[in-house]
């Protein structure tokens, strides 16, 4: 298990390859990557991500450990950035390795659902018109009911 909380960009290709390479016991590798998206009417200039240093690392490790306890996983990786990002930049990634694909997929979805609503990050969108905090969506909270 590896948890990284960092302001710096990460190399998604290298991280994904590193995670997937050299395993002969895990047949299924899933990755999820979140990209800053230029959402809508007002063109997004940047996204600023605030977090809670200290708690962030603990919360992510706790979510990853619960996934490991629930599914049969060989490994878990979570990388999450904070600070200022522009559209197209990668915000975060998770990766799961499992013997069987269903475990790898479900664990990755679980990690994402919990990261969305239970890890102490707050996003602020900056456009030419001004800026505003991203509001947590009811459907993200409801997504946790699956688990």
């Amino acid at each position: 298990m590896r948890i990284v909380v960092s302001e710096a960009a990460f190399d998604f290709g290298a991280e994904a390859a590193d995670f997937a390479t050299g395993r002969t016991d895990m047949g299924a590798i899933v990755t999820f990557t979140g990209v800053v998206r230029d959402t809508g009417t007002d063109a997004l200039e940047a996204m600023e991500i605030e977090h809670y240093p200290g708690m962030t690392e603990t919360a992510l490790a706790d979510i990853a450990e619960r996934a490991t306890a629930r599914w049969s996983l060989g490994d878990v990786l979570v990388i999450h950035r904070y600070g200022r990002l522009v559209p197209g930049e990668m915000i975060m990634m998770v990766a799961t390795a499992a013997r069987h694909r269903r475990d790898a997929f479900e664990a990755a979805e679980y990690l994402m659902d919990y990261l969305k609503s239970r890890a102490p990050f707050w996003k602020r969108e900056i456009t030419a018109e001004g800026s505003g905090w991203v509001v947590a969506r009811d459907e993200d909270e409801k997504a946790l009911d699956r688990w």
Partner: protein
Amino acid sequence: MDVLYFAWVRERIGLPRETVETDANTVAGLVEQLRAREDRYAAAFSDVSALRVAVDQELSDFDASLDGVREVAFFPPMTGG
């Protein structure tokens, strides 16, 4: 006790953290005392259902005891991922 504020709670109160002397027994008691301080606190805590709280860096709730607690943080619902 250290009290931390994040996102728009931090903006409304105007600072990211402060040391607070309190005799409150619970998070809710602390919120009452903070709210009574100044308008900016009253504004930040006007609707606690819109807030989340962490006690010693663990997600908690407003009934939680402050016994032995070193750090309390207030913030809006998280938007990670």
